[in-house]
């Protein structure tokens, strides 16, 4: 292998002045990015700053409020419902992020072994739930798990001894919602993993099997490290997505013990839109925002550091 020092002449120590061409490149760069920056600033930066400002006030959803410092946050941390929502969200993230990632990888490995038409059909089947809107997913699973008439109740009866309304049994609520969510969203992870798997050259596997590597060794020593960047990506996306869980938890919990089953976003929604407490809801939103930023950055850094060993 040649190295750079063998082929390029040594650079002069003095920095050259920017050529006129550089300046026009700057202009081009500006013209292309300014529209996005403006839209981003108006639609994201400005509302976020407004929300942080709102969280420092006692204000309704619409209309002016009075400044009251961090008392919203103090009240939030003493609010029993906040902690319920927080732990529910954390529990849900635990139940859904890693399983859906691993399941996506497993399915992708399996689908990758198929060829041609069979592969397309099987891939389409696994991806089909992903295109459904959440209300349809909700209806399907509510119907299948219905305590009186659901087709899955006989199976549940084998384990529980009787028909169960799964979504009205507190201990089963989150696991059931996580199960439905994994079923719904794994297809997307499968696609990402297949893209990653296809990037691994089959020659590596050939030479490994020639050297006598078992299937497990091939997976653990070749596939897993090479697919690591995709795994990190999927985990990060899933983490951010599931921290923001609202639809499924709200729908399946509606009419039931919502004070015990709600997630963080539902807490924000309830305070803002039902109780008309805009400032208080904004403080919960800021806390959630901070949690997501911290956790996703942490996770990304940790995982990447591990992978680069």
């Amino acid at each position, binding site marked *: 292998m040649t190295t750079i020092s063998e082929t390029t002449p040594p650079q002069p120590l003095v920095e050259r002045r920017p050529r006129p061409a550089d300046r026009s490149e700057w202009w081009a760069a500006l013209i292309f990015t300014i529209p996005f920056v403006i839209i981003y600033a108006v639609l994201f930066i400005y509302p976020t700053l407004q929300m942080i400002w709102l969280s420092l006030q006692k204000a309704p959803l619409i209309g002016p409020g009075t400044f009251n410092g961090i008392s919203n946050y103090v009240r939030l941390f003493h609010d029993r419902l906040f902690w319920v929502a927080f732990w529910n969200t954390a529990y849900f993230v635990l139940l859904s992020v890693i399983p859906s990632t691993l399941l996506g990888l497993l399915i992708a490995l399996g689908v990758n072994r198929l060829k041609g038409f069979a592969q397309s059909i099987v891939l389409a089947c696994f991806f089909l739930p992903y295109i459904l809107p959440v209300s349809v997913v909700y209806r399907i699973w509510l119907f299948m798990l219905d305590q*009186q008439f659901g087709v899955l109740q006989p199976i549940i009866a084998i384990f529980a001894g009787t028909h169960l*309304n799964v979504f009205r049994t507190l201990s089963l609520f989150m696991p059931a919602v996580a199960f439905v969510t994994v079923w719904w969203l794994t297809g997307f992870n499968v696609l990402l993993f297949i893209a990653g798997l296809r990037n691994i050259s089959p020659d590596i596997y050939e030479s490994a099997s020639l050297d006598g590597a078992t299937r497990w060794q091939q997976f653990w020593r070749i596939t897993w490290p090479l697919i690591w960047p995709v795994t990190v990506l999927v985990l990060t996306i899933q983490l951010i997505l599931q921290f923001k869980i609202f639809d499924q938890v709200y729908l399946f919990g509606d009419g039931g013990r*919502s004070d015990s089953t709600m997630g963080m976003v539902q807490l924000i929604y309830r305070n803002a839109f039902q109780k008309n407490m805009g400032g208080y809801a904004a403080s919960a939103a800021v806390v959630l925002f901070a949690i997501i930023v911290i956790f996703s950055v942490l996770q990304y850094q940790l995982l990447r550091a591990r992978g680069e060993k």
Partner: protein
Amino acid sequence: MFNNGRIAVIRNIVRAALLSSALLTVGVGGALAEDTIVWWDFLGGGDGVRMKSLIDQFNTEHKGQVQIQATTLDWGTPFYTKVQTSTAVGQGPDVMTYHESRIPLGITTGALSVITPEEQAASGIKSSDFEPANWKQAQGPDGKQYAIPLDIHSIILYYNKDELKKAGLLGDDGKPKGLDGAANFDAALAALAKTGVTPLSIPTADGATMWRIFYTLFNQQNGAQFLSADNKFLDGDANIADATKALTEMNSWVKNGYTPAKTEYPASIALFTSGKAAMHINGVWEVPTMVDLAKKGQLFDWGAIQIPVFYDHAATWADSHSFAIPDRKGNEVPAAKRKEVLDMIHWFNEHSLSWAGGGHLPAYKPVRDSADFKNLKPNSDYSSLAATAVFDPVSTLAGVASPVYDAAGNYLMPGMNGEMAPADAISQLQSDLQGQVQ
């Protein structure tokens, strides 16, 4: 280069363009001569179809004068949030449907405008044409009128005539007998259970239904008051006792196996329509479901009556769809338009018989007293409930999709299904709601 053919084509195109723009101007000009009422509602499904045909009828009768331009939005919190946010910036409709139970919150958030007595009189709207409780529910703490009722919708007892007959509970007039009084009702359930049928199916997994049944049983007791004048929920031991009594009765049905626990809303209806359950408590809005099934010959001989009197006097939970005019900040609905809207509301009240096809009871007494309505089955079988209907407590915490409904899901639902002791559930309900009063 240009030839005669091409010039002819161009000339024809120009002529056609001039003609069509002239026609357009005349057409648009003609349309501009008639007024438009912008209307928002939350009525989907069967209700939506019925309302749409009423709107079409109105538009046909008032062609050239005023037309309704209707939009249907999502039912529940999204509708009320949208109304609130749009009126705050001067946007929004000229008229909207509004649950009377949501009016307290609507007034506090400034979404509703006052309808003065002079305006009412000018359009022929009289308070004497409505039930006093229904009319009062649309008023604010200042006694001013913020909405005009359209209907009263409530919960009723659906029953299977064949099953009731087998258990000896059917009178000669085809109506149930022996259900009044809590002890009699429980005995009736036991008798039905003996014949092998599920006596009573209720959406026991649905907090909203829990609230409606609880509120009904609670208010049937003398002196019961859910919200006191000084904004206290279940104030005093007597009210707590009444509330506990109501919830204990509901729980006894589940405990004794008369009502399946934690049944979802669609399943509870299916239990009844499939003949597995002899009786069913649900809203009047399921009447079209029964009527349609019966028309197709897929339903047994069924009927519906007012909820029996369990305790001291008749009472049934009710809410009311009403019409309200939004208070658009900086862009108020002009006086002439308001007159048109109120005339329109009066027209809808006079024609509310077809609205009753959705199971609702017309709020307008002249229609309820008419011969046509008296012949409308099954509505006329339960229209007696209008006189003793009890509406949701007047509080910003009450109403559709409100903290009160959430509390019903959190405490009444587990209380009925046996997850919480009724006394425990009531005391937690009381402290939860009281803690939210600001």
